[in-house]
């Protein structure tokens, strides 16, 4: 450990400073400092006060002279509590030291003594770890006998299995690293490997755990002494003072409370400092595993990490009369001025399949979630209009949002039956602990008021409709028992449990195998065609959109940049659409040339440029593009495009020479896009 400290000591000092810089870290350090100072100086300063026998004031309550009263010999309990800090803290530290030392020995033994003996030691450790440390301490206390020495060994040995397991896990993970393997091949001895390579790497985690374990040892010692199995009179630690105090709790409760408070404060100081160390040194939560308390802590840290993960991603015209969904000026904003969706308008007609295509971060999925009212705080959704079958979805939602959930039962039933959703990952989109059939049946039971049996029958019927073989059997299974493709089909079945006028599918095939993708797409298409449903199909894959949809909305940086029928994709007039098409490899794509990609990075929604967001990646970009954002303009045929240079794009001549190489595949030389054949 010393070696590694000297090795990158400066980085470590910096991290330590970071630990102490946080409010939690600094207050824990101050608390621990006070405990340490007391442990060092209290016996020197107040030993005589604590041991002074005053027969004139025996068993008294708190007074100005004796803050927490006196004991049976008239000794001042307050001074005794202060003086006892040395013995209490010292014994706890010593016990932790014993625990760490034994743990290191037992934990590294499997690396040294060979496979068979190592496995035996490991299994013994695993059995011992299953018992709470307090029970182990009690067991060892019986064997080592009553008294401070016996309790010290007992608590030390009781914490050893936990440390051994920690060391074992850590060293096993380190031992698997490449450089250890390299050293082993180079003929470095096992022992040397251990001291030079393994131990320095697990030192930090061990120190963090030892700090917390010291707090636990303090509490355990107080417990044993309190039971009369630890420190024996005339010596005294906090536990022993507590034991004395409890006998007189009626007459002078302060004498019991004071040592109790001391134990809690000191224990808290060690634990909080350990936690601050863990956070500051970046010890991963999985590695906080010493003992039952430690495993609780580890579980807490793991839960916290899980909760912290998956933060939500920061990311006036004529409408056809038969529109199922109408969206006008939809905006999605996140705190901090991020606008991933910036005022988009579109409509989906009855029975129409509309694809929304764009790179990740273009705002297409957020659009789908916003339209289906599934975005929660901190996302803010606004629009001049979002109507489904003529019913204003967003305005009613605005009123209901105060409660944090849909308050309008009617709206909920309307959306639940008229709008179906299919999500990207069928693996995670089903509740893992509920049966598939029950998850489908729920829709019918809640919104149609069907009985359990009727709802179940409808679920089986829908599973059959999405061509799942043996639907009665599958309905009784858990999601993990279905294959990915089958799960996504069940998801589609769930979306059509009601009589949806619109199905929104958010990247429904992205998580699936290529072979399964095609089946699911075909199913989606046939369900949509049979039921005369509208489909809003979100995808990053323009080829897939071409296979399924009638019309394509191309999104870039939160805006619709082009809106055109699938059949006309070959003469798309926006450079971005063309780039997307050119990036699709086809049978004619030359094998000896690198695959075409769209150069540059997608626009950052938090930091959008003035003017056209695509300008930085566009071969046609001019000064005007960089200054003014082109509006979405409709032509006579109803196609819409947002570009200043439509004519130049259609002519295929980049205006800016400097950006000529930006599009790897020239729109003309790319030939007819592969998609055209598949659409037909």
């Amino acid at each position, binding site marked *: 450990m010393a070696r590694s400290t000297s090795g990158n000591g400066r980085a470590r000092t910096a991290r330590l400073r970071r630990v102490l810089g946080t409010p939690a870290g600094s207050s824990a350090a101050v608390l621990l400092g006070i405990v340490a100072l007391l442990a060092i100086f209290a016996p020197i300063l107040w030993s005589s006060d604590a041991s002074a026998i005053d027969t004139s004031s025996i068993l008294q309550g708190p007074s100005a002279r004796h803050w927490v009263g006196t004991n049976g010999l008239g000794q001042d309990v307050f001074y005794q509590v202060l003086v006892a800090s040395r013995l209490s803290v010292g014994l706890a530290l010593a016990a932790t030291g014993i625990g760490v030392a034994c743990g290191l020995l037992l934990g590294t033994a499997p690396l040294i003594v060979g496979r068979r003996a190592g496995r035996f030691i490991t299994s013994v450790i695993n*059995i011992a770890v*299953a018992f*709470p*440390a307090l*029970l182990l301490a*009690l067991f060892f206390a*019986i064997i080592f*006998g*009553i008294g401070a020495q016996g309790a010290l060994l007992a608590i030390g040995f009781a914490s050893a299995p936990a440390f051994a397991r920690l060391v074992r896990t850590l060293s096993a993970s380190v031992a698997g690293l490449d450089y250890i393997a390299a050293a082993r091949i180079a003929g470095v001895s096992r022992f040397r490997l251990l001291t030079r390579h393994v131990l320095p790497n697990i030192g930090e985690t061990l120190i963090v755990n030892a700090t917390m374990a010291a707090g636990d040892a303090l509490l355990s010692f*107080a*417990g044993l002494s*309190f*039971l*009369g*199995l630890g420190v024996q009179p005339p010596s005294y630690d906090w536990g022993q003072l*507590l034991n004395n105090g409890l006998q007189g*709790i*009626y007459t002078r*409760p302060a004498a*019991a*409370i004071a040592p*109790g408070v001391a*134990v*809690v404060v000191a*224990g808290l100081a060690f634990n909080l400092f350990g936690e601050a160390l863990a956070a500051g040194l970046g010890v991963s939560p999985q590695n906080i595993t010493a003992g*039952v308390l430690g*495993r*609780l802590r580890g*579980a*807490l840290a*793991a839960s*916290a990490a*899980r*909760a912290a993960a*998956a933060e939500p991603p920061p990311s006036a015209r004529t409408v056809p009369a038969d529109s199922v969904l109408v969206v006008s000026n939809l905006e999605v904003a996140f705190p901090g001025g991020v606008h991933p969706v910036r005022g988009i308008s579109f409509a989906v007609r009855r029975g129409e399949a509309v694809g929304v295509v764009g790179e990740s971060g273009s705002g297409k999925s957020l659009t789908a979630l916003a339209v289906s009212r599934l975005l*929660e*705080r*901190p996302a803010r959704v606004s629009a001049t209009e979002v109507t489904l079958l003529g019913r204003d979805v967003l305005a009613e939602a605005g009123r209901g949002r105060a*409660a*944090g959930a*849909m308050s309008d039962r009617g709206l*909920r*039933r309307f959306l639940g039956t008229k709008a179906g*959703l299919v*999500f990207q990952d069928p693996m*995670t*989109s*089903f509740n*893992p*602990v*509920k049966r598939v059939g029950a*998850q489908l049946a*729920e829709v019918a039971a*809640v919104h149609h008021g069907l009985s359990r049996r009727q709802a179940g029958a409808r679920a089986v019927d829908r599973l059959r409709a999405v061509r799942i073989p043996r639907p009665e059997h599958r309905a009784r299974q858990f999601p*993990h*028992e*279905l294959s*990915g493709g089958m799960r996504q089909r069940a*998801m589609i079945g*769930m979306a059509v449990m009601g009589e949806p006028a619109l199905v929104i599918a958010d990247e429904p095939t992205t998580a699936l195998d290529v072979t399964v993708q095609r089946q699911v797409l075909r199913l989606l298409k046939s369900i949509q065609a049979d039921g005369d449903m509208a489909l809003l199909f979100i995808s990053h894959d323009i080829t897939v959109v071409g296979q399924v949809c009638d019309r394509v909305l191309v999104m870039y940086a939160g805006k619709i940049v082009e809106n055109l029928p699938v059949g006309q994709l070959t003469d798309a007039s926006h450079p971005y659409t063309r780039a997307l098409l050119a990036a699709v490899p086809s049978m004619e794509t030359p094998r000896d040339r690198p695959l075409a990609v769209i150069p540059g990075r997608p626009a950052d929604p938090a930091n959008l440029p003035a003017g056209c967001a695509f300008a930085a990646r566009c071969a046609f970009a001019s000064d005007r593009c960089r200054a003014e954002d082109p509006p979405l303009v409709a032509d006579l045929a109803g196609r819409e495009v947002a570009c200043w240079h439509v004519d130049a794009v259609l002519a295929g001549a980049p205006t800016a020479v400097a950006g000529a190489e930006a599009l790897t595949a020239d729109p003309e030389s790319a030939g007819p896009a592969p998609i055209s054949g598949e659409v037909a």
Partner: protein
Amino acid sequence: MMETPQAAAADSVLSRVAPANPGASASPWLRFAARRLGQLLVSALVLITASFLIIHLVPGDPVRAALGLDASQQLVDARRAALGLDNPLWLQYVDYLRNLFAGRFGTSITSGLPVSQVISQRLPFTLELAGYSFIVAVVVAVPLGLVLGVATRGGRRRGTELAFTSVSILLAAIPGFLLAVGLVYLFAVTLHWVPVAGESGFSSYLLPVASMAIGPAVVLARILRLEVIAALRADYVRTARAKRLPAWRIYLLHVLPNALTATLTICGLLLAAMIAGTVLVENVFAWPGLGSEIVASIIAKDYPVVQAIVLVYGTGVLLINLIVDVALALLDPRSTIRES
């Protein structure tokens, strides 16, 4: 635990393999049962051996220590013979095992009573205390964790979150027996609402149960809150919301089962720790359970009693671990299949 990428990957592989191999659906459970049973047997054997060794590992003559220096040599010899301590060690071990399976735990050195009688008198009180405390902890923690998780999701109500986290850290840091001292002072000594010690009807349960339940309840609520927040962000909750289910249905039927499954292991740890905690809390309240008996027996060096109680505690812990593993396997079948 629930949705790690590795788990999902393993899952997808399994689900694809499963149809091709129909027999595989039954065997993981058998393998799980066999492995878990083997684990239990080995642990039980280690536990029994450890309890057997107690009387042989204590320094000096255990019988002399128990009877005191004043006892006559004949008495000590007679007691030694009665305990079978003069036999060779292996024979003693065999006898110990045979007696255990016959339900004979020997007789107390100090009182002369059969140890099984002592245990059967004391055990119910300890089981009651631990059982009630665990139930109270769960009953308090589950609604608290769920409500707090829902209320503080996505950075809502930062103040509430901070207050709860701070209070829970403090409460969880106070061990049960110290909390017991504080509660006795407050409710028994100052307010006279409940008796200070002993078992005397309903009111005498309040303080022991409270002092054992508060810490675990707070820890459980804290973990549950985080699991609820994690579950609320899961895709399947989005699916449930897409189905436009009422909020209570989403929270109770979709979020809670998943969050609870994730806390099951913690519940086992808390219950095991609680059994150990009874030893201390029973001594605060002079509770007539195993905890006060084992301490008295340790001090009196009444080793047959000590051995038996160690065995009882250890068996309790092993059973809890078994129940948790089985429950986890039933509630989250993926974990079973994954391990075997």
